[in-house]
Each structure stands twice: as C-alpha cells, then as structure tokens.
C-alpha cells in the first residue's frame, strides 16, 4: 500500500515530441485513480513511466515517498496488468500465476501460498490445474489479474485491461475489478479510453488531452462541473450538445440567442456574465441530452427556455428514447434523451425545453468554463 506522487512529469520523445507535459498529481494510498482520454493523449505513457517502462524526461516520481525515477521496474514494487492478457499456453493457471515469483526465486511453499490465496480472492481456485486454452476470456483475464496479485505490490497499474473483452464481459469485469480494489485495499492506477469505465470505477478521474491534464475530480464533479469544453464533451454518452450563442441583454433579462432561438438565462448565472463582460459577446452553451425535455408539463413551466426543432430520428432504447433534432443556429443534430413514452415522431416539428439550471457556458476562445462551481 502506497501513495504515488507525480510532480511536473514530462515525457519528450526524440524530435522534441512532448507526449506528457507537466503532469502533476498526488495519488493517495488506496485510491482508485483512472486516467482517461482519447488515443494519443499520453495516459498510457504516464502509466508506463510510473511502471518504469518509459524513461521520465523531467520531473519527480515518488512511490511511497521514495524517489523512483531511476529505479528499475522490478524494484518499484508495482504490478502491471496489460491490455493483452497473454498467458503461457503450455503452463497451467497455477504455473502462470506463480511464474514471476519463480523467476524471483521465491521458496516453493511461499509461491504455493500466494497463488492459492490470489486464486481464492478471484474465485478461480477450481481452475488452477487447467491450461489457458480451457478458459473463457473472463477467466483468462482473472488469471492475468492473479499474476499481479501474487506479487503483493504496493501499487497496481492497469493499462486498458478490459479492452480485449466483449461488451458483456467488460461490464462484468468492471464490477469485479472494483470489488477487487475494495478487497485488496491497495492503490490502483487504471488507464482507459472508455469514459463509462472511468466513471464507474474511479474514485477520482484524470482527464487528459494532448499530454496535458484537463481536470482531476470525482466522477460526479467531472460530469456536473466540467472545467472546459473538452471535458464536457468527453464525459457523458450521448455527449453534451453545444451551441454557439450570443448573449443579448434587453427588457431586464439576458438571452442566449442562436438562429431563431432564444433561451432566457436564469438570474443566478447572470452575475458572472456581467462581471466578466460577456454580455453582447459570443459564448459556447452546453446542455446534456437528459436536460432537454419534450413533456408538456415541462414546456408549460419553462416557456422562456424552449426551442422549436424537427425530429430527424428517434432511437428507442427501451428505458429511454434518443431524439435527434434539427433546429436553426446549429449545424449538427441536437440530441435529447427523453422518456420512452414520448409521443414525438420523426418528421414532426416539436417544442423542447432546456433545464436552464443545468446549462454550461464556455468561453468561445479559450473554451474554459465561464461559471464557477
């Protein structure tokens, strides 16, 4: 068990390509931290630097308080679970799990104890004599986890360990890994490009883009208070709808105007716009699909927050319906997640209302959030 401290970490490849830029993060002991971001954002490189598989170009990395920049991987007391959970096909599950300990010349009875203990934790004791060929994908993934557990590391590092599994198994293994974290009470650093994985597993999430940390926060805060447009768009499925709007004052109120649509800005949000001189300027307005409604009662209650739109597509998901809407002032579709009992039909022009309390506003140039938490 240990905390991990990354201070101003850089990774620069030959040709001055900066893969990770000034990465600073304190990971608490027993925390489950998830690094998430699109391909090429530097999340795997960061993890590999913690593992010692990539040289650190600048900054300081500490595990359990000790500077480990130049410590070889085997002496860092970490265990890595890779994306490809390759097992030795000719070895039994037992031998696969104990292999790293055998290489380190652990006594046989100690190997036996650790393998059996890990197998029990993962509920694979009955598979110990089997060869990988006789295992399902999920069972193989458990064995790969077992290989890491037997090393009894201070920190577990996982690089997209579920990406080779099918969708159903991914969901199942997601829960298994969360349970494992609770059981082992050890620090986990987990890399994924899947925001659902990040949201469901992490105690804190680090969102990265182009080698730079965009935001570090709890899943709920990331969703409710994204610090910039990138985070807002990356977290949430379907993603947040964005509108380029002009803030127009008149008649004692302020409206966000796009195309022929006008949304009245609620009073609590106004102060910040006024103090930062946003009135009369263009900003980016964001609203999540679930904050757009087509129920009559909502539309009656919020007449100043409604727009007219044509339904281009309606996707029935069972528990909800996604409406793909076309309106003026926006090139692409507006997506609304509405009640499955919605009566809106394809081709109809309907009114939809925005939950103004859940609207986000971003600076049109910097794309940073305008409103405070």
């Amino acid at each position, binding site marked *: 068990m240990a905390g991990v401290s990354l201070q101003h970490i850089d990774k620069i490849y030959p040709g001055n390509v900066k893969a990770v830029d000034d990465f600073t993060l304190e990971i608490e002991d027993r925390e489950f931290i998830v690094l998430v971001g*699109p*391909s*090429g954002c530097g999340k795997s490189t960061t993890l590999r630097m913690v*593992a*010692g*598989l990539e040289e650190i170009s600048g900054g300081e990395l500490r595990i359990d308080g000790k500077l480990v920049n130049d410590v*070889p*991987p*085997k002496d860092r007391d970490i*265990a*890595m679970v*890779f994306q*490809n959970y*390759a*097992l*030795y*096909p*000719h070895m039994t599950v037992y031998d696969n799990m104990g*292999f*790293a300990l*055998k*290489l380190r010349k652990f006594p046989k009875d100690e190997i036996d104890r650790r393998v059996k203990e890990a197998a029990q934790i993962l509920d694979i004791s009955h598979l110990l004599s089997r060869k*990988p*060929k006789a295992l399902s994908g999920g069972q193989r993934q458990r064995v790969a986890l077992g290989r890491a557990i037997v090393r009894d590391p201070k920190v577990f590092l996982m690089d997209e360990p579920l990406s080779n599994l099918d969708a159903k198994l991914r969901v199942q293994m997601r829960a298994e890994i969360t349970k494992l974290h609770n059981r082992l009470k050890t620090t986990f650093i987990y890399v994924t*490009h899947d925001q659902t994985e990040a949201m469901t597993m992490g105690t804190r999430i680090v969102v990265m883009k182009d080698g730079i940390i965009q935001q570090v926060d709890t899943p709920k805060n990331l969703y409710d208070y994204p610090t910039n447009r990138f985070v807002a768009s*990356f977290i949430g499925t379907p*993603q947040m709808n964005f509108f380029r709007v002009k803030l127009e004052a008149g008649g004692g109120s302020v409206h966000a105007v796009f195309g022929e649509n006008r949304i009245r800005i609620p009073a609590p949000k106004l102060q910040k716009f006024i103090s930062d001189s946003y009135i009369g300027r263009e900003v980016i307005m964001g609203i999540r699909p679930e904050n757009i409604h087509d129920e009559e009662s909502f539309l009656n209650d919020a007449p100043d927050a409604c727009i007219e739109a044509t339904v281009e597509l309606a996707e029935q998901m069972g528990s909800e319906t996604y409406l793909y809407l076309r309106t003026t002032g926006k090139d*692409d579709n507006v997506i609304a997640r509405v009640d499955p009992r919605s009566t809106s039909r394809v081709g109809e022009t309907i009114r939809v209302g925005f939950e103004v309390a859940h609207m986000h506003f971003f600076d049109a140039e910097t794309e940073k959030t305008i409103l405070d938490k």
Partner: protein
Amino acid sequence: MYLDHHVVAMIDRALSKIDMNIMVLDTNGQVILPEDNKREFTIPEAIRTNPTKPLVYGGFTLIGTEGAQPLYLVLPGDSVDVSNCAVLAAELVNMLTRVDLPHADREQTYRCILREDVEGTELEALASEHDIRMDVPRQVFLVNIANVDAETALAILNGAISEEEDTVVEMDRHTVALIRQSSEAPDMDEAEQFAQALINTFENETGQAVSVGIGEVKTSLNAIADSFEETKRALNVGRIYRNQSRVFVYHKLLLERFLDEVPVEMQLKYNQAMFNRKTARLFNEEMLHTIDKFFENSLNLSETARQIYIHRNTLVYRLDKVQRQIGLDLRSFDYAVTFKMMMLLGKNGQERGGKIR
C-alpha cells in the same frame, strides 16, 4: 560467428592482458567488445577478402579470425609490433571460439544446426548423440532481447519454456533463439500467445521492450535452419512495416515481405505520389491514426469511431476529405488496399534499429 556471453567474457579477460585497447567486431561490423560500445563499422573489403592477413587502415591494424563468419579485431597503431600482436590476439580468439563438434553440447549442436554449420550424416550423428529426434514438429522463435543482459534474458526464457521439449539457444549479443518442439502440430494462435506472454514478462521484469519473430513449423530437424531464417526475416520486415507490434509472424507478413523486395527508390517514388507536399496537411498525425484504425477495424466505421472516441459523422467527414483531395474512397476495399500499400511503402525510409543478420 556465434559468441555467447561466457565466451565474450573469456575473450575480454584474455585480451585485457594484452593491454592494447583491442576492439572486437562481429562479422557484420557491430562492436562486441568493449561491451558498452554499441557502434557498427563498415568492414573494409580488403580484410573481408583475406581476413587472417593483418591490414593497416587509417592508423589502425585490422585482422580477422578463421572461419566462414570471422570476427574482426581492431588494434590502435600501424607498426610491425602491432601487426604481430594482432596475429597473436586473433589466434587467441580462434582458440576460444572454436567449437569442437564431437564434443559440442546440446545447445551448441542446435546452434550449429540453426546456422547451417552442420548437415547430412554429421547432423544425424550429433542429433543421435544428444537424443534430439529428427522428425518431430518444431518451430523457432527468435527473441530480440535489445538491451537486456544475456543472463537475465536466458533466465526468463529458460523459466518460460517446457524443459523436456524446448531449447533456448543464445545466438548473439542481441538475439536468443527458442526451439519449441511438440508431438502434435503446434497451434499458431498459441505461438503468438506465448510470444506475447514473453514480451509481457520481459517488460515486467526488466522494463525493456523485446520483440519476437516466429518462424513456420518444420517437421524435420534439417529444416529448422529455414525456420530460423524466417524468424530473422520476420523481425527485420515486421519492425519496418508493423512498427506498432512486437510479435512478428513470418507467414502473416506476406505483403510486407513482398513490398520489402521492391527497390527502395521505387518504394519512395510510389509513396511520394500520394504523400507529398500537397497532401502533407491532409495526412497529419491525427488523420493517419484515424485511417490506420479504420483499416485495423476492417473498414468498420462504427467500431473505429468508438475506438478513437470520435463521432461516426466525424469519421465520415474525415474520409470524405481524403476522397475529395486524393480521389480514393477508403471505404471501398480496392481503394483501401491501394492506400494501405502506398502507406506501407513509405515506412522503409523511416529510422529503426539495426538489422538482424
């Protein structure tokens, strides 16, 4: 010539007594001693032609050892004394590296077979002496151990193999061959799994990225030298054309092997017809990554969009942009193949590590 790390250490000890700062190069000119020197030199043709005769070259004296694949010794100085010293040093290395075939151990025997230093009845006699069966399916894996020291690499590989059936053979400073034997025809998927598991073990234990070439299965001992050649070819071709991977299977690299046969000038000519100054902005890193992923997912739009975390429409927009500018619709199989080949042709000019010979 093969030199295992024990022999290198012996040569190092012996030559250090001569106190002449002697450099030892392998047949290809790569420095073997001193061990921290990673350079590669071009061996002058005159010494290649007549290796055992000392040659004075740019203030140094060069001499080669005996055999079809000689080692070369480089001594500073060009006097007669240095020349005499070179002859003595070369003879010393000859003595230390000579393999006495009748007394060769099992590993040395396999090494000679892989190098095709032994064949016919001599091979059969050696095989019989070491209980090596002649006709059983075998497959060679060649591990490029990069900067991992030989002792560590051998410990990992010997731990990973099936002791009764497989053999680990150190081939040179950077490569170790693994001969896997099976009573039934080996499964290629399992072979890849095994190679990937080895790579993961090396990463976890040493922090080094090794790569593995996998040859074809051969049913006769005589033919494993061919499997060994295939592993070298797979490693050399794979790291040019599939530089994101580290497991290279010979039989899966047919297209890449074919392209590698095309003269470099012609490769560049065709590559530049598509990737040039006019298209440099279009084919930026992001676009190439998108296209790579699109091909990797067998032209599946939805899956590609999901994997690179963009909207499907964004992907369609990017592919439309390519079509508008170069006239190839990458969603069509024929055009995708054309583009893929042109893209691969450009990879031969990119920087990479030394070739495995």
